[in-house]
C-alpha cells in the first residue's frame, strides 16, 4: 500500500486530507468526530481577537446550486468567523491536540490589521500546542467590510506586512490562506512569500450570488427580505482553484512554495489533481458539509489504490508532477492534429453530438447514412475541438484521436508533420520571432 503520510512544512499527519477552517472544525465535538472518522488534520474554524465574539445571522446562511437529482454542485455562505469566545476555542484546541497527537491541528486566525492585535493572539495560540497557523485573508463577506479577511488578501502589501509580523512573533509554521477574489493570484502569493510565509493555502470562497428568489426578488439566502453576496465553494469552484494552484506552482517567483490545495475537493480524484498541480496536501469543507466526515475513507482508499496501481510510492512522487505540463497557450503545438471518432457500438443515437457541432461548431457530424439515423464524424470538417466528446452522454463513446505523422488532414489538405511548432513562430502572428529561413 502506498505511503499516504503527509509532511507539510514540517507538520505531520497520517494522510493529506485536512478539514478546512469552517463549520466542520468549529469546536471540539466536530473535530473529535472528524479525527475518529480518519481525517489527517484540521484547520480550526477561524479565531478572532479577544473580546465579545462576532455574531452570525439567525436566518439562512447557505444557498446552493444543484445538478441532476439535487446533487449539490456549489454552496454559498454568509457565515463569519467563529462566534464562540476565543478562550473556549483555545481550551478545546489544547485538549483535542492532547487527545490526538498524531493529527495536524492548525489554528486559523483573523484579527485586525494591526501589529498589536497579532502580537497579542499568537502566544495564546502557541500555548495550545497547535502545529501551525493559517492566516485567513480570504473571507469575502462581512469580515472584509471590517477591514479583515479578503480586504487584506486583496492588498499584497498588507499580506506581506502581516505575514512578517507573524513570522516575527511565533515559531509556528505560517500558512497564508489566499482569496480568489483578485485578478492575478500570483501577486498575493508573491507577497506572502516575500513576508516569509512557510506556505500558502487556496482558495477561500469566491464572491457570489448563488441565485435570486423570484418571488421575493432578493438574493438567496434571503434574510428578512434582503441578501448579500456570499462565498462560493464546492465542486463548482474546483476548476478555478486548480488553475490558481497551478499559477502559483509554475510562477518562477513562487515555484516550490508549499501549497495546501483547497476548493471543491470531493473525491480522491480531486485530491490527486490538486497534488499533481503542486499542492502538498488538500483541505476539504463543502464535501464534508454535504456528506459528513465518513467520505474521508473513500478518499484515503481511492488515493492509495490509484497510487498502488500507478506505482507511486508516496505523496512526494505525485506532488507537482503535472506542473511542467501547464504552459501558456502560445507554446501549444499547432501541428498537433486530432479528429473526433465515434464508437458505433457504444453510440445510442441521441444526436447530441450532431446538433452541438451543427449549430455551434463546425458542421462535422452527419446525422444520416443510407437513409438511416447515423452519427459519424466527417474528417474534412472536424477541427478536433472536443465539443462532441464533452456533450456525448455515453462514456468513451466519442474520443479525440491524434493523427499520425505522415497522414493527411482532410480538412486542410496538409500532411501532419509531427514537428512541434507554436504561435510564437507562426506566420500569422505579427509578433512572431523571425522564422528560420527555409532550407
Amino acid at each position: 500500500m502506498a505511503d499516504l503520510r503527509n509532511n507539510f512544512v514540517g507538520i505531520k499527519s497520517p494522510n493529506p486530507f485536512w478539514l478546512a477552517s469552517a463549520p466542520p472544525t468549529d469546536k471540539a465535538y466536530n473535530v473529535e468526530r472528524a479525527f475518529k472518522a480518519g481525517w489527517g488534520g484540521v484547520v480550526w474554524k477561524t479565531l478572532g481577537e479577544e473580546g465579545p465574539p462576532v455574531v452570525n445571522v439567525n436566518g439562512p446562511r447557505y444557498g446552493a446550486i444543484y445538478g441532476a437529482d439535487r446533487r449539490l454542485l456549489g454552496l454559498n455562505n454568509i457565515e463569519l468567523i467563529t462566534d464562540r469566545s476565543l478562550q473556549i476555542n483555545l481550551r478545546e484546541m489544547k485538549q483535542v491536540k492532547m487527545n490526538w497527537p498524531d493529527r495536524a491541528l492548525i489554528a486559523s486566525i483573523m484579527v485586525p490589521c494591526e501589529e498589536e492585535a497579532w502580537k497579542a493572539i499568537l502566544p495564546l495560540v502557541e500555548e495550545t500546542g497547535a502545529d501551525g497557523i493559517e492566516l485567513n485573508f480570504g473571507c469575502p463577506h462581512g469580515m472584509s467590510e471590517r477591514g479583515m479577511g479578503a480586504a487584506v488578501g486583496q492588498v499584497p502589501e498588507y499580506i506581506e506586512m502581516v505575514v512578517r509580523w507573524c513570522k516575527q512573533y511565533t515559531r509556528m509554521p505560517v500558512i497564508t490562506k489566499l482569496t480568489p477574489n483578485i485578478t492575478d493570484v500570483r501577486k498575493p502569493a508573491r507577497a506572502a512569500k516575500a513576508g516569509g510565509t512557510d506556505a500558502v493555502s487556496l482558495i477561500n470562497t469566491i464572491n457570489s450570488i448563488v441565485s435570486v428568489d423570484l418571488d421575493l426578488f432578493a438574493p438567496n439566502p434571503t434574510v428578512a427580505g434582503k441578501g448579500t453576496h456570499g462565498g462560493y465553494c464546492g465542486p463548482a469552484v474546483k476548476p478555478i482553484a486548480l488553475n490558481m494552484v497551478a499559477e502559483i506552482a509554475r510562477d518562477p517567483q513562487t515555484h516550490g512554495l508549499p501549497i495546501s490545495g483547497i476548493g471543491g475537493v470531493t473525491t480522491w480524484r480531486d485530491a490527486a489533481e490538486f497534488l499533481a498541480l503542486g499542492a502538498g496536501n488538500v483541505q476539504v469543507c463543502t464535501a464534508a458539509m454535504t456528506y459528513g466526515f465518513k467520505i474521508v475513507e473513500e478518499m484515503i482508499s481511492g488515493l492509495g489504490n490509484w497510487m498502488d496501481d500507478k506505482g507511486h510510492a508516496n505523496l512526494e512522487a505525485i506532488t507537482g508532477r503535472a506542473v511542467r505540463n501547464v504552459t501558456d497557450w502560445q507554446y501549444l503545438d499547432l501541428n498537433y492534429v486530432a479528429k473526433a471518432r465515434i464508437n458505433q457500438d457504444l453510440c445510442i443515437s441521441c444526436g447530441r453530438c450532431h446538433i452541438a457541432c451543427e449549430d455551434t461548431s463546425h458542421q462535422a457530424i452527419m446525422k444520416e447514412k443510407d437513409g438511416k439515423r447515423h452519427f459519424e464524424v466527417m474528417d474534412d470538417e472536424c477541427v478536433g475541438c472536443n465539443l462532441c466528446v464533452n456533450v456525448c452522454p455515453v462514456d468513451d463513446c466519442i474520443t479525440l484521436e491524434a493523427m499520425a505523422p505522415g497522414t493527411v488532414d482532410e480538412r486542410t489538405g496538409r500532411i501532419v508533420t509531427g514537428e512541434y511548432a507554436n504561435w510564437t513562430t507562426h506566420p500569422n502572428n505579427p509578433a512572431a520571432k523571425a522564422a528560420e529561413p527555409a532550407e
Partner: protein
Amino acid sequence: MAQGDVKQGIVSGRLAPNQYADNFSDLHPPLDRHEAIVEADRCYFCYDAPCMNACPTTIDIPMFIREIATGNGMGAAETIFEQNILGGMCARVCPTEQLCEEACVREEAEGKPVRIGLLQRYATDMAMADNRQFFERAASTGKTIAVVGAGPAGLAAAHRLAVKGHEVTIYDSRPKAGGLNEYGIASYKSTDQFAQAEVDYVTAIGGINIINGKTFGQDFTLQQLQERYDAVFLGMGLGGVNALRAENEDAEGVANAVDFIAELRQAGDLSGLPIGRRVVVIGGGMTAVDAAVQSKLLGAEEVNIVYRRGKEQMSASEFEQDLAAAKGVTIRHWMAPRRVVSEGGRVTGVELAYTAMVDGQLRETGETLVLAADQVFKAIGQTLNSDGGALELAGGKIAVDEFGRTSVSGVWAGGDCATGGDDLTVTAVAEGRDAAEHIHAALLAT
C-alpha cells in the same frame, strides 16, 4: 391481491369490500414533484428525438421533459396538448413500451427508458387540475361540422376544428361521451372518472355540442348529415363484435368481453358486479388481457386466456402479457375454441382444439381439451357497425387516404373505424386531429 371467495357460478362480492379499491387502483401511480424532476433529468434532450418520432401524435417529448425539469410544468402541458389534446389519457393508456419508450435512447443504452408516459401524466394532470386552457378559438368561420362518435378520434377532431373557429356537433349513440376511454379502457389505467374529466377539459374550449343517444345509420343517415353540415367526420370506432362461430355460443354465461368491460367501467360499486369462478377469455389482444385481468381482480379463482396462435402473434404487448401473468392469469397458446359445453343452457366449459402451423397454415392437430368454465368472454375483435350505406371499405374499415378523406366527398374518417394505423387511443387522436386540419383547409378553400 387476496384470494377471492370460491363460490361456484357467476356471483358478486367475491372479495372483502375493501379489496376492490386496492385491486382497481392506479396501475402506475403518478410521480410526485421530486420523482418527476429526477426522471426529467434523465432525458438527454436528443436531437430529432427518436421518442418523438415514435409517438403517433409527435409530441415534442424532449421539450416537455425539459420544461418539467426547469419547473415549468404548465409549459410542458402546453407542449403536450398542442399535439395531443388527449395527452392526459394517452399518458395513462399508451403502450409506451411499444411507442416512445421503446424508441428512447436510454432503452438502448441501459434498458431503462425515460418514463415518458409518467412524465406526460405529471404535466397534464397539473394543468387539468388547474383547469388551465391553452387554446383560444379563432374568429367564427360560420362553418358547421358533424362528428360521429365522441371517442378519442371524434374529440380530437372536434377540438381542433373548434380552435379553428368552426362549430362542431358530435353525435354518439352511448349515454356518455369518451368512447372506449369511458367504456373500454381497463379501469386501473383510468381511475377517478378521468375520462369524463377529460371530456369536460376538451370541450371547455367551446363550440362543441355533444348529442348523446343518437346512432348513425339508425337515427340519421350520412346523407342527412351532409345536407345539414359543411363537412362530416366519422369517428365511431368499431361498435360491433365478431362472432365466435363456435357451436353453442349463445349459452348462458357467454358474453362479449367489451360488454363485460363496459359494464365494469360503469359499475358504481364493483362488489355488486358478478364474476365467474372459472373464467375463459378467448382472444389475443388488449381486450382479452383487460377482460382476463379484471376478472381476476374481481376475485375469479381461475382465469385462462386461450389464443389460437403463439405468444409472438398476440397483439397484446409483451408488457400486457406479463401484467396478465403477474395478476395470475394463465395464457394458453395454440388452442382454438370448437364448442361451448353447457348443461341446462348454462356454460360449464369450452372445448378447445390444439392448433399448429402446418405449411404456413394454421391447422387443428386433432387433439382436444375441455376447460371448465362458468363464464366465457369473447374477445376476438370488433367490427364496424355502419358504413353509412355509401362508403368504400377496405379490410372491414372505412377506406381513407393520408388526409383522412373517405370515398365520399366532404366526408372524412379516423380512429378505429378507418384504415391506417394501429387501433390505439393515441392513433385515433392523431387521425382525428389531422383530419380536422384537412377539413379546415378544405373549408377555407371553398
